């Protein structure tokens, strides 16, 4: 590996070059093996302190980071904060600076407001890893999706990937769009026009409002979770109609390639975005995504902490 990781933070996949993404995926590959050992632990982050700062409820992502941190031997701490109390009381910056005063090395942040990790990264010395911010990005989810596709298909370049659902509000979709297009996949986003974000075609993706047509040539179908409250905003008439038009059934899937991958970032609304038959079927790699999430997050934590060491070394040599 000739490329050296130099970024203090991981805020988005938009920020990363193709080579940086590939470096993370390669690093993840070597960490994946750790989870298959009898003793699932390496000392890579021994003596480092990581805080998982979660302003939004999350089990899946937080558990995955927690396992990744423990398998790297980091000292870790979960801080879950009710968003409502933050809005009324302490500001995000104050909360984060208080956490930093505990001398932590890495802050993993989940927040419902887009750009919160960027705000923290500007204000903190610690490394910031974005664990999902509003409708902006979810870079580690994007990376684990790339990793899963690469593992199953052996390549990403040239694949036809279809992303289905509420793209307008999806951070997973944005990270996937950046990652996939940077690595050369052909991306089509599918959903009702009301959930297709403005000028998204300028990101180099195609748009379709017809799921059956769009999946015909797909190598990968990534289904997004539908937030049921979108119905109240009149973005679609009913959940029933949404499921009818954009839910993935076995019948629709039968028209796709036999080896098409079906992915979902979880948690699944069974019966809305996909039927149980599809979720649990032979094309589904949903649980493998979860497993790969650990390796990818270990890689990110490791690389980011390494960049910190580099930075500190430079500071030291500058002092000398």
């Amino acid at each position, binding site marked *: 590996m000739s490329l050296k990781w130099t970024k203090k933070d991981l805020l988005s996949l938009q920020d990363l070059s193709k080579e940086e993404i590939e470096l993370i995926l390669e690093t993840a590959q070597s960490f994946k093996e750790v989870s298959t050992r009898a003793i699932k632990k390496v000392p890579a982050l021994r003596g480092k302190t990581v805080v998982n700062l979660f302003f939004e409820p999350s089990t899946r992502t937080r558990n995955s980071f927690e396992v990744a941190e423990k398998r790297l031997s980091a000292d870790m701490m979960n801080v879950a904060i009710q968003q409502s109390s933050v809005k009324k009381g302490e500001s995000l910056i104050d909360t984060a600076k208080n956490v930093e005063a505990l001398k932590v090395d890495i802050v993993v942040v989940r927040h419902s407001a887009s*750009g919160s990790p960027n*705000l923290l990264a500007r204000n903190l010395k610690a490394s910031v890893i974005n664990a999902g911010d*509003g409708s*902006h990005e979810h870079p580690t989810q994007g990376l684990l999706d790339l990793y899963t596709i690469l593992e199953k298909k052996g390549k990403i370049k040239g694949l036809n990937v279809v992303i289905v659902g509420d793209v307008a509000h999806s951070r997973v979709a944005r990270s996937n769009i950046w990652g996939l297009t940077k690595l050369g996949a052909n991306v089509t986003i599918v959903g009702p026009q009301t959930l297709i974000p*403005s000028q998204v075609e300028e*990101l180099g993706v195609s748009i379709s409002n017809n799921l059956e047509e769009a999946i015909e040539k797909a190598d990968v179908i990534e289904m997004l979770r539908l937030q049921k409250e979108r119905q109240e905003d009149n973005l679609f008439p009913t959940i029933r109609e949404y499921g009818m038009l954009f839910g993935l059934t076995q019948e629709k899937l039968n028209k796709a390639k036999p080896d098409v991958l079906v992915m979902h970032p979880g948690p699944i609304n069974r019966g809305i975005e996909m039927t149980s038959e599809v979720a649990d079927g032979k094309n589904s790699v949903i649980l493998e995504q979860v497993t790969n999430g650990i390796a990818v997050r270990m890689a990110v934590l490791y690389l980011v902490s390494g960049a910190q060491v580099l930075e500190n070394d430079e500071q030291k040599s500058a002092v000398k």
Partner: protein
Amino acid sequence: MSKIKQKSLLIKNGHVVNPATGTDEVCDLLILDGKVEKIGKNLTADKVTVLDAKGKVVAPGFIDMHVHLREPGFEYKENIKSGSEAAYKGGITSVCCMPNTQPAIDNAMVVKYIQSIAAEVSPIRIFPIGAITIEQKGEHLSEIGSLNEAGVVAISDDGYPVKNSELMRRAMEYAKMFDLLVIDHCEDPDLAHHGHGVMNEGKTSTILGLKGIPKESETIMVARDIELARLTQSRLHIAHLSTAQSVALVRAAKKEGLPVSCEVAPHHFALTDEALSEFDANYKMNPPLRQQEDIEAILKGLKDGTIDCIATDHAPHAEYEKNVEIAYAPFGVVGLETSVSLGLDQLVHKKVISLSQWVDKMSTQPARLLNLKDLGSLEPGKAGDVTIVDLEKEVVIDENQFASKSKNTPFKGWKLKGAPVATIVAGNVVYQSEDAKEKVSKK
């Protein structure tokens, strides 16, 4: 007692640009007892302070018709004193302050309050703008006649549109009795997500995952207001216009002869929505920064006269209010101390408009729209309000040097060519930049 003193001053050798009379040449300007006495070559006067303006531009005092001074109610962001200081440091001699204070400027008492504070603390002219509706709620008309009598120069519910078209119609008809300008903040609140929209809807909002405010939220209201101007024949002024389509609508209305005018803020001709890429709330304002095609249309509108004037929408906010998740931050940026440099650098030096056109939009036009008959021109008999600018002076915007209490500028670190060097109100030199100070000699 008013802090505006009527003084005498002889400004020598400046390049006098006075669009109202077409004056555009090097000559002298004599102000006696607060009023312009004479413009001409080789003027002399006894016992009068002399200011050498050689190599500088001498213009009628600049009027910023869209400013939030925040007093009463939000003095931690700005007050009349700090806002006045920011204005005169920025070359502004007259400020119109918007009514979204606490309490709102929706009755004569608040107007009188602001005027009395201004008289105590401000050496420049402060003109309150009255609220169209009580508490700017868009429900009941304010006592517009009493506001007019108390001295407001226009009415507006700025910050909010008047959503109810019937009420807007009545406000316009009623204001017409007093020949008051009706200024509207054009926004369809539903399309703008009732204040929860963060930025322009487009490629950048899609990338950032921020709630978008479509351009149509502005243009729908501009179109409605123009229809109401046709119906009522009242004078309508579109505040801080930001989109290409708004420019087109105003252009067509003017062509038809409707009494419609509009202003643009410097940030809307100098920045696009791509500036929000780092989620910095110092780029969050309403209307939001738009796209390159909108800037191009705005520049054309400035050039062909569709856009009457430049106003800053100076909207100070405390640092702790802005350094938060961008969705939670309030709208608005400060502008008083950067407007002149941005206009000179981005419009005059780039040859979008001539120096004289720029002065017209900074002074003559706002005076005309607001019926400020003594201002906006350097003809004999008019007020001796003068802004002197140095076209060549290079500045770097440093918010820590601002007189404003708030530092929320989107132009941090910008290098600009052209700056105000002296601000004169009624013959009284209220501000001079450090490098220009040695130019005054007492006689």
